[in-house]
């Protein structure tokens, strides 16, 4: 029942080989991708400003809450700060769970809470 959190400068690289947790029947990976349009205007990418120590703590708090609530096996959380160009990945959430239902539920809840409680702000460039 491990939770890992990383803040990364710039876009996230391709997902590294991460063996699924023993006993896991489902792995779900969510990649948040920067879209080339923001409010109808064409952009180059997004600049993420993070209050880094608190963002890390909040991500870990949410992760641990949801791991406990849903009985998940593993959660790996990575978010960019700084500039992320269009089409690149700025956020990745990996969840291993025994069954899919709780994993999908946790993923949905995680992203809801991310958008309220994690001090990261984006600005179109």
């Amino acid at each position: 029942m491990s939770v890992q959190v990383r803040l990364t400068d710039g876009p996230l690289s391709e997902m590294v080989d991460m063996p699924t947790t023993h006993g896991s029947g489902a792995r779900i990976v969510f990649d948040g991708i920067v879209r080339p349009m923001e409010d109808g205007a064409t952009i180059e990418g997004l600049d993420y400003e993070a209050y880094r120590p608190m963002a890390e703590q909040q991500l870990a708090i949410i992760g641990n809450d949801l791991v406990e609530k849903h009985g998940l096996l593993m959660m790996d959380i990575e978010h960019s700060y700084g500039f992320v160009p269009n089409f690149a990945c700025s956020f990745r959430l990996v969840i291993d769970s025994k069954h899919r239902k709780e994993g999908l539920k946790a993923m949905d809840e995680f992203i809801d809470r991310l958008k309220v409680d994690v001090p990261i702000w984006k600005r179109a460039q």
Partner: protein
Amino acid sequence: MLQYTILLFGPASALIGADRVVVQCSRSYTCDELKAQIVKANPSLETHLQVGRLAVNQGFVAGDASIEPDAEIALITMVSGG
């Protein structure tokens, strides 16, 4: 004279053109009192303080929590990560 320093980020920081504001005081404030004092000293931040929350030592706190002036205080306005 005591002094609170409040870190700003994102739109709030852009609005003020600074990454922090300072509030002078003669006694310790609760979170809600400090928010009121920040608005008083920086009226343009009012909207941000209405929707935003104060974080103390990198965690959210209740409105009636007392805040030590030497704490790390930050104004967390509408976030937009993901």
